């Protein structure tokens, strides 16, 4: 057994640190400090994306042939660790982690040529059109339709929870192309090379945290080229499953989670306990912090075992296990953040949260983000397959524990 990264990676870590210490602009750093969601503040994060692209590091998980770094899992973990330690905004996932790798796997040469460079460089931003008002966890029940017409499809219907659709210039989506047979059959995966087609209407949705992160998108006889279809018509469900594999696989969540816990520990030293004295010396707080630390540590251990190629990585339920663990741990951390912030979590400070607003927050920066993060993170157990659906999947793979 051996817990260490390959020692030769220390030089790599130094190289990463040197860049991360110097390259980000003030706006990028501010965006990182004001990140209260998986989706970091858009403009500054895309600026960071372009700076990383210029350095050749926009796509740690992509192979070199597509302009990625070709880094090993260990290198990606190190990069993620150092990135989070500096409170930098994580790059937006839809292009780099979802549709990009999907196109590498299933896209036509023309689709790859057309779309991958813009994803990599940060010129384009893709939104995901999956959920519908009547198709959430039961995604295959989707009904937004596409009718073939010459070289085009004509789309009618509605998508919802299309994250950042109002900022995106591209969209990947699932549409219904056939209503006969099982509902999983008759679904088609489409790429839209614009989000401003005639008949397409995007409406932002204000979330619990007061921010318009989600959108709904209406389609009224929207004509799009069939050339944007990935895979065969009516075979979109298997394409979506392939994408899901990319969305749920690979990236480690523990560096982000560890960073949150570090912020909580630091804030607790400055906070006052209900019965006086520093919160960090309060026995009840210490016990709860200990439990959180133990849970964070175990999650790190799980991710490092998977990273190392331990047999645990082959558990078919691992993506679901990781999703439940990471999302619920994020929620526990968010609760602890609001506890530590105390009444300083109560002022509603939407302007102070905006990057570049120049509005000074009431209280400290930790308290500014505690409640918005808590509210936004309620979604973690809902999105990307609700945790109830994940538990269904986990319960179908129990035989992997053998006595």
């Amino acid at each position, binding site marked *: *057994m051996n817990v*260490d990264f390959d020692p030769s990676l220390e030089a790599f870590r130094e190289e990463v640190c040197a860049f991360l210490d110097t390259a980000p602009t003030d706006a990028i750093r501010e965006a990182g400090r004001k990140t209260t969601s998986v989706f970091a503040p858009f403009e500054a994060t895309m600026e960071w994306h372009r700076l990383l692209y210029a350095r050749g590091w926009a796509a740690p998980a992509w192979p070199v042939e597509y302009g990625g770094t070709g880094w090993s899992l260990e290198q990606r973990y190190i990069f993620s660790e150092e990135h989070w330690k500096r409170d930098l905004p994580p790059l937006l996932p839809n292009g780099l982690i979802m549709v990009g790798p999907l196109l590498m796997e299933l896209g036509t040469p023309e689709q790859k040529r057309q779309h991958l460079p813009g994803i990599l460089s940060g010129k384009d931003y893709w939104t995901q059109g999956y959920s519908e008002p009547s198709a959430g966890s039961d995604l295959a029940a989707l009904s937004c339709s596409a009718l073939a017409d010459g070289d085009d499809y004509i789309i009618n219907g509605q998508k919802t929870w299309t994250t950042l659709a109002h900022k995106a210039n591209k969209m990947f989506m699932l549409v219904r192309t056939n209503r006969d047979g099982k509902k999983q059959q008759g679904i088609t995966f489409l790429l839209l090379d614009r989000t401003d087609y005639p008949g397409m209407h995007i409406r932002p949705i204000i979330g619990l945290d007061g921010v318009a992160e989600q959108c709904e998108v209406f389609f009224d006889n929207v004509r799009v080229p069939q050339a944007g279809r990935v895979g065969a018509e009516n075979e979109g469900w298997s394409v979506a499953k392939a994408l899901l594999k990319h969305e749920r696989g690979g990236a480690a969540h523990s560096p982000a989670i560890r960073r949150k816990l570090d912020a909580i520990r630091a804030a607790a030293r400055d906070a006052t306990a209900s019965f006086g004295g520093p919160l960090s010396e309060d026995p009840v707080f210490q016990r709860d*912090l200990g439990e959180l*630390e133990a849970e964070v540590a175990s999650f790190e251990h799980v991710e490092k075992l998977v990273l190392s190629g331990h047999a645990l990585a082959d558990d078919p339920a691992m993506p679901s296990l990781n999703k439940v663990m990471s999302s619920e741990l994020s929620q526990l951390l968010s609760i602890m953040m609001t506890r530590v912030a105390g009444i300083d979590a109560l002022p509603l400070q939407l302007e102070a949260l905006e990057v570049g607003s120049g509005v000074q927050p009431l209280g400290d920066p930790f308290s500014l983000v505690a409640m918005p993060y808590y509210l936004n993170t309620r979604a973690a157990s809902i999105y990307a397959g609700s945790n109830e659906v994940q*538990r269904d999947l986990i319960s179908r793979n129990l035989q992997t*524990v053998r*006595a």
Partner: protein
Amino acid sequence: MNFEFSDEQVMLRDSLSRMLDQRYAFESRRRIMAGQAETGIWSELVDMGIVAMPLPEACGGLGGSASDIVAISELFGRHLVIEPLLPSVILTGRALARFDPAGPVPRWIADIGTGALRGAFAHEEGSGTGASSTLSTKLYEGEAGPRIRGSKKLVLGGGEAGVLLISALSETKAVCLAAVPADAEGIEVRRYRALDGRPVADILFHDVAVDRAAIMAGADAALEALLADARLALAAEAVGAMAVLMATTADFAGTREQFGRPIGSFQAIAHRLADMKIAYVKARASLLYIAALADSGRATSRDISVLKAQVGRLGREIAQGAVQIHGGIGMTDELPVGHYLKHILTIDGLFGNTDYHLREIGRVVASA
């Protein structure tokens, strides 16, 4: 990074598993516990080299590492083995190997390694934490040499031991370890069994004379290492027990029918099983990771506390879930489920329970 057992460890685990499957199946274990069967297991463990394994090579052992101890202890947990490998060898034998090799100590270590002598670690005094700050047993200078006075509780294997390793405070309040023959004058032993069937004892030391050569003064580091070994081995046992509960409960839920279908098909049961699996994956990952850390000599007391706390709370979650999902039959003594629950609860109580370790972790990380 590599968290797999080595080829040698896998081979040893395979042969130990085969032996325990044959000789220590649940029904055999019941007869052994009831005194209706001779175990013979201890001499098998000696023959397999497992008893000598944890001791340093210089003392005739096989130089077992932390992960070696984990590899074996996990299987002990799967089979609910109560043979005294932990108190005699992992604790007493390994600690004695840190003493100056003088007086009776080398002989004791050699005999522990051959299985001829059993040792026990007399440490617990009632706080349940294992922390040296709670010690009150005294090692003092008597007229004819050093003596020990104090009382110890829940000493694992204390009634069967030929040599006792005792933690105590010197007259200057320094932490010391001392070893005495169990038949020395002034030792009073009260034997009983712990919740999970392990033989334990309360031991009173009425001004017991100690051979000066069998004392380690300034034993803080040695005691810390001893406690780390104890917690790591017990955590491995707990994870082994959790694997059995997980597997048997999943099987049971797949075959037991109510309302005309397997109970595992009900979402309330399925999701509880999913939570048990999540708990198991976390506990086992922490066990293997911290074993690897310990192999490199870098497991801190915080790491060990994380492991002990996690197997305590996650083990309880799995064991209580297992009883619930088994329903009425899970409440009976004839099914293994309850025995695994009691094994896990006993482990939680030894050398600091969940609450103690969580508070300890929080205290350390809050101020770090």
